[in-house]
């Protein structure tokens, strides 16, 4: 079973919608106990890094998440703020984050509109099971004012240009994360979610053609 972490302010309903449309069994989770049986975890995120960190702390989810991801190697997908809080620190509200990966979160600057809002090009750097049936470059939907700067180049799975080149997707062991909203990114976004669900042992119905989403 795939669990989508619901901390009320996030966009968990949208992610659940997308998984259900793909006929993938998924549920909303918000307790450490509910995390235990999961074979895959999705942390959607919107809002600020601080609010998200506060919610995860209040729900006492952080030690349980770390046990799942680092102890059991359970596949994990962070989306948007769910990607940013994997870093050590976010410049947004000077917020200490999870620190699962070395690196920082910075604000876009220069002559670009903030937030970045819309479909931008994502260029993948290497093949990975989560990219099955995706091409080298795809459009995905972004809504962000901040972006991650991981310390290690090898965790960068994809990059995008918005005034500067930034890491739009990362992969490291069981950890995956996208800056873009894969749940709102049309066919390519759904393919990526489906790939994650498959590598996380997600169960699905035999009839894949019953739902067609755009």
């Amino acid at each position, binding site marked *: 079973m795939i669990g989508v972490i619901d901390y009320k302010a996030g966009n968990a309903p949208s992610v659940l919608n997308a998984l259900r449309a793909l006929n993938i069994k998924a549920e909303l989770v918000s307790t450490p106990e509910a995390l235990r049986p999961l074979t895959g975890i999705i942390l959607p995120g919107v809002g600020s890094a601080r609010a998200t960190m506060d919610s995860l702390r209040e729900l006492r989810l952080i030690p349980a998440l770390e046990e799942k991801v680092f102890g059991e190697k359970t596949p994990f997908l962070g989306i948007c703020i769910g990607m940013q809080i994997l870093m050590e620190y976010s410049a947004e509200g000077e917020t200490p984050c999870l620190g699962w990966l070395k690196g920082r979160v910075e604000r876009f600057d220069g002559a670009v*509109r903030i*937030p970045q809002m819309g479909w931008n090009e994502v260029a993948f750097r290497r093949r990975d099971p989560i990219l099955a049936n995706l091409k080298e470059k795809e459009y995905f939907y972004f809504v962000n004012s901040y972006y991650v700067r991981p310390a290690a180049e090898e965790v960068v799975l994809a990059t995008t240009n918005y005034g500067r080149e930034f890491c739009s997707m990362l992969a490291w062991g069981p950890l995956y994360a996208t800056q873009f909203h894969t749940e*709102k990114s049309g066919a390519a976004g759904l393919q990526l979610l489906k790939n994650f669900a498959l590598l996380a042992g997600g169960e699905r119905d035999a009839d894949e053609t019953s739902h067609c*989403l755009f």
Partner: protein
Amino acid sequence: MNVRVIPCLDVKDGRVVKGVNFEGVREVGDPVAFGKHYAQEGADELVFLSIAAAQEDWTRVLSLVKTLTSQISIPLTVGGGLATLGQVEEVFAAGAAKVSISSAAVKNPDLLTQVVKRFGGERLVLAVDAKRPAPAAAGWEVYINGGMTPTGLDLLTWVAQAEQIGVGEILLTSIDADGTQDGYDCEMLRAVSEHVKLPVIASGGAGKLEHFREAVQKGKAAAVLAASLFHFGTYSIREVKEDLAAAGIPVRLYNLNSGQVWL
């Protein structure tokens, strides 16, 4: 960044309608069918504005949003009469990607602050209806209640305040241009786009293909929104995007890997 092309569904009594100059609504169809069609055609986002939501059956609005978001996988912005944090929460729970707040924001700017704090400013669209107070006047005045009530609020002051509060983008409708099909108010668009760093969605007045490029080139709009022109099939999303692309404006239209038109 690719310029977004956004069809707008004005929904009243569960049906898509088209208002001209904010008065006299005319029914055109089923919102879910329209939304799915536009998503398939390559719309970058959809906007769902509930007309007279205060009087309307709120449960029906939420149910429509839920049905629509379960059948498309592009972002849906929901607005029209949203006035409380509770309503915003319900709309997000129904699957909306963003909410659009208009009149309530003017009456109670604290609502914007609350939404930003709770859900993040990037999911909050400030919808602004504005017009010139008089033909020869400088600047524009913000109107509320579907363009009926002047507020005395200066447009540029208001959008700057909203940016400060932390809203994610501005949906700017020209009351003078809306429904005329004579083109967007590019002067007003440009003034706002140059005054804030936020993306600005152009709304009101699209009637011809060239109007879309003008909104981007002259008005500096980050996105273009239209309703009746798409509903009545005057132009398809693809025709608008091809025309923008021909003018050298980046749009999500071509396959990134082959260069072929894929929509």
